[in-house]
């Protein structure tokens, strides 16, 4: 069977079932087409370097293929693979000790007293500036903002990936937005 013979409307779950049953590479092609770009996007946002992001995309995809039979279908397939991607990149950064914020859990409370940051503040920002700010903020804050605003994950889904309670996730999102605004103000003083 060729990739073009597979209906584009076929659900991820059905593609996985067929791939596991037949090992036909056409089903792998479908999964690769649907998700490789998005995985690369997350890797480059977190790892910052294109070459590292390319290597990480390859390794994440291999992890996904090796563990495909373990996907239970409890969560959406996209949530499952993004979870593997985020965890892989965070582990990589932790190993390289490039982000000190990963070494301790965020217990700061000073941001709590600040005002909430409206979603529109982040969503209406120029992409070039967004990219620069994301490169500056700690990786955990960046991850949580990407999960919420790029992957449209619910609080429940983020809490499953980060293994934190839903209320802790809400607090982390609030703090990440505050850190984002603080960093923005530091960089673009004129605004």
């Amino acid at each position, binding site marked *: 069977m060729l990739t073009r013979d597979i209906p584009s409307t076929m659900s991820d779950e059905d593609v996985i079932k067929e791939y596991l049953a037949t090992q036909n590479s056409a089903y792998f092609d479908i999964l690769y087409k649907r998700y490789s770009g*998005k995985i*690369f*996007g997350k890797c*480059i946002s977190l790892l910052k370097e294109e070459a590292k992001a390319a290597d990480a995309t390859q390794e994440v995809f291999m992890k996904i293929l090796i563990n495909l039979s373990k996907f239970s279908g409890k969560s959406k397939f996209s949530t499952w693979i993004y979870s593997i991607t985020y965890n892989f990149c965070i582990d990589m950064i932790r190993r390289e000790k490039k982000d000190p914020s990963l070494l301790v859990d965020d217990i700061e409370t000073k941001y709590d007293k600040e005002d909430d940051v409206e979603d529109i503040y982040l*969503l*209406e920002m120029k992409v070039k500036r967004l*990219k620069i700010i994301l490169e500056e903020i700690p990786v955990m804050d960046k991850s949580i903002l990407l999960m919420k605003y*790029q992957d449209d994950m619910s609080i429940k889904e983020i809490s499953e990936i980060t293994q934190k309670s839903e209320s802790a996730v809400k607090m982390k999102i609030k703090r990440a937005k505050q850190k984002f605004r603080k960093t923005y103000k530091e960089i673009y003083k004129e605004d």
Partner: protein
Amino acid sequence: MNNSFKELEKLHLEQFEKKSPDIKNKIEGETSSYKFIGDVLDLYFNKVMGVFVAMTGGEVDAQNNPDKPNSNPTD
């Protein structure tokens, strides 16, 4: 409402286009190596286990030994 995060994702997808074929080839190469190793294990695992069992003084299950064509008494 705009979503600058989605726009950033689009930029990354464009950036990925150039890298995509190379990454795909590497993944396919790696999966074929895994498949090859799996096939080799499938083929020889029983034999290796049989030799191991025989060496440790056990008796190889004749029914499951593919080296003995007449090992199944019902045939």
